[in-house]
């Protein structure tokens, strides 16, 4: 991966803000605050964050399903944020961007066969492929995701969870997309299926030169396949950078807490969750509603007066970015008295 901020990024999200429910004069609930990130062709970008941090909203705004209130999104150099009506439909029919829903069972019509489901994106964009070519591409997509062609006449209800997820992936790749957004693709799968699906992403991005954005709340499932990781906390990007560096040397206390809490992530630093948890009592301002300053302050052991100002995302060596006033000095504040349970 090149270190410089390349402009040939397939997905470029710039200062994206999203707010919901701006209705009847009430101010909307802001879900994303100025998030910027990018993904290049052939790269897997992992987006991690806890429930409600805005991961899904981020992916949905790329395909035009979230009300974007600020910033812009570029796919392959073309802005997609302002697309409406016919232009939006044409963009969607091109199949350049595919969104993989969280729940494969509910995102596949129970009345259609696997063949019909996978062929649907091609059939919708009629004229882009003839009937025979469509049939060929459906079979090709099935093969690509490692499903037997004999499954083509089954209904989603007759498939296992892992097979369903692969049918959903086959439907996404049948249009030969440039960008694939996968929302929690493995959270509903058992360990072996999870590995299959993750390895499938790894294979597809080299075969199709795809940019893949994988959204997950589970650090360990991302650790193995993502080239870069972006960490979201309460709608703000708190840290991003190459996976190995982010996981081994987290710059943000929240990332550190995540890596320390994940049992299966191999890490060189010896951080224990207890060392990072905030002590009591908390400074009163961190509990104020609406929240002011750094969003993580209420849970951060190292929060102090300077954190009342919202930290901006600062570049660091190795194409890393972090949004923390104490990114460089919080480690010095670690107490060594906590017992090391890992030893």
């Amino acid at each position, binding site marked *: 991966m090149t270190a410089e901020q390349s402009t040939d990024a397939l997905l470029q999200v710039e200062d994206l803000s999203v707010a919901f429910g701006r209705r009847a004069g009430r101010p909307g609930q802001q879900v994303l605050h100025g998030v910027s990130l990018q993904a290049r062709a052939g790269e897997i970008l992992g987006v991690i964050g806890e429930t409600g941090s805005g991961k899904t909203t981020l992916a949905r705004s790329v*395909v035009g*399903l979230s009300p974007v209130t600020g910033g812009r999104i570029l796919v392959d150099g073309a802005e997609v944020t302002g697309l409406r009506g016919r232009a939006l*439909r*044409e*963009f*969607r*029919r*091109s*199949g350049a961007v*595919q*969104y993989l*829903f969280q*729940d494969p069972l*509910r*995102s*596949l*019509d*129970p*009345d*259609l066969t696997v063949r019909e489901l996978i062929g*649907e*994106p091609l059939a*919708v*964009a009629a004229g882009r492929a003839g009937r025979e070519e469509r049939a060929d591409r459906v079979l090709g997509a099935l093969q690509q*995701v*490692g*499903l*037997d062609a*004999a*499954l083509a006449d*089954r*209904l989603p*209800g*007759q498939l296992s969870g*892992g*097979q369903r997820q692969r049918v959903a992936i086959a439907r996404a790749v049948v249009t030969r997309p440039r960008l694939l957004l996968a929302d929690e693709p493995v959270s509903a799968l058992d360990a072996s299926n999870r*590995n*299959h699906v993750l*390895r*499938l992403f790894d*294979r597809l991005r080299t075969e199709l030169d795809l940019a893949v954005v994988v959204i997950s709340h589970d650090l360990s499932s991302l650790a193995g396949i993502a080239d870069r990781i972006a960490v979201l906390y309460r709608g703000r990007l708190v840290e991003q950078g190459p996976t190995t560096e982010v996981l081994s040397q987290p710059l943000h206390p929240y990332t550190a807490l995540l890596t320390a809490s994940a049992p299966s992530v191999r890490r060189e630093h010896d951080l224990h969750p207890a060392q990072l948890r905030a002590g009591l009592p908390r400074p009163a301002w961190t509990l104020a509603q609406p929240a002011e300053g750094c969003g993580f302050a209420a849970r951060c052991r190292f929060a102090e007066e300077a954190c009342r100002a919202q930290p901006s995302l600062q570049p660091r060596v190795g194409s890393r970015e972090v949004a923390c006033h104490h990114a460089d000095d919080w480690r010095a504040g670690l107490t060594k008295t906590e017992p090391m349970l890992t030893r």
Partner: protein
Amino acid sequence: MRTLRNTLRVPVARGALAVLLLVALLAVFGGQLAPQDPLAQDTAHVLQGPSGAHLLGTDYLGRDVLSRLLSGTGLSVAGALEAVGAALVLGIVPGLASLWLGRVFEWTALRAVDALMALPFTLFAIAAVGVLGNGLHQAMLALGVLLAPLFFRVTRAAALGLRQVPYVEAAELMGASRSWVLRRHIWSKVLPTVAVTTAQALATSLLTVTSLTFLGLGVQPPAPTWGGMLASDLGFLAQQPWAPVLPGVLIMLTVGALHLLADALRDGGAADAVRPVRAAATAPVREEKADAAVAA
């Protein structure tokens, strides 16, 4: 299509379809099949039981009951079909549109339907006939308008939950048009409910012809209909207690067949889920191989 094919696999559905086909034939050719003139009166032989001359007897004006039943099929069925057809169009289209055409249309349509449901049927029919003039078409159209809320509600209820379903959203993400989503994803879910409701509404309409004829609306005497015969026969129960049974049996057969067909249609949609996959025994092995190939 799959639902229809599954439906035809059910023996009951085939039987019901045969009955309906017979009714359809009677509706078209009933007039020609009638052994006598259904309107010819014979005041010397009124209210007679079955005999060689009149296989099913005669009514209170001495008209041949069998001929009247046969030639009345067309009007009865056509009337019911017309009413339900109007109700289907007036109910289903706004029902689906209320979900996709925005809040203003939705609110207006819902209030219009509430108003229609609150109208007393007889009053509305009399008013409609008063405005449009008396005749079968006018009366059936009025009936259709009054049945439309039923279809509106049923369609809307069936489609309401589907608007936010991820597979509909997924189709929109593929750039599918509204009509594609409706045809491909919504219609197959709404159809079974609509089919059952249609059978029920057809049955109601067949019987409603009776009450309309009673009021002197719709089909005018002496033209025969099943409902009209039922109504006039009821006046002579003391003389011929079995007479209403004849049109009654025909109505019952038709309605029963419709209901069975609708049930089969509904089950046909669900049959996919329970139907075992062909060659299920060999399939898993191949799937595992496929999995192994991916892992390699």
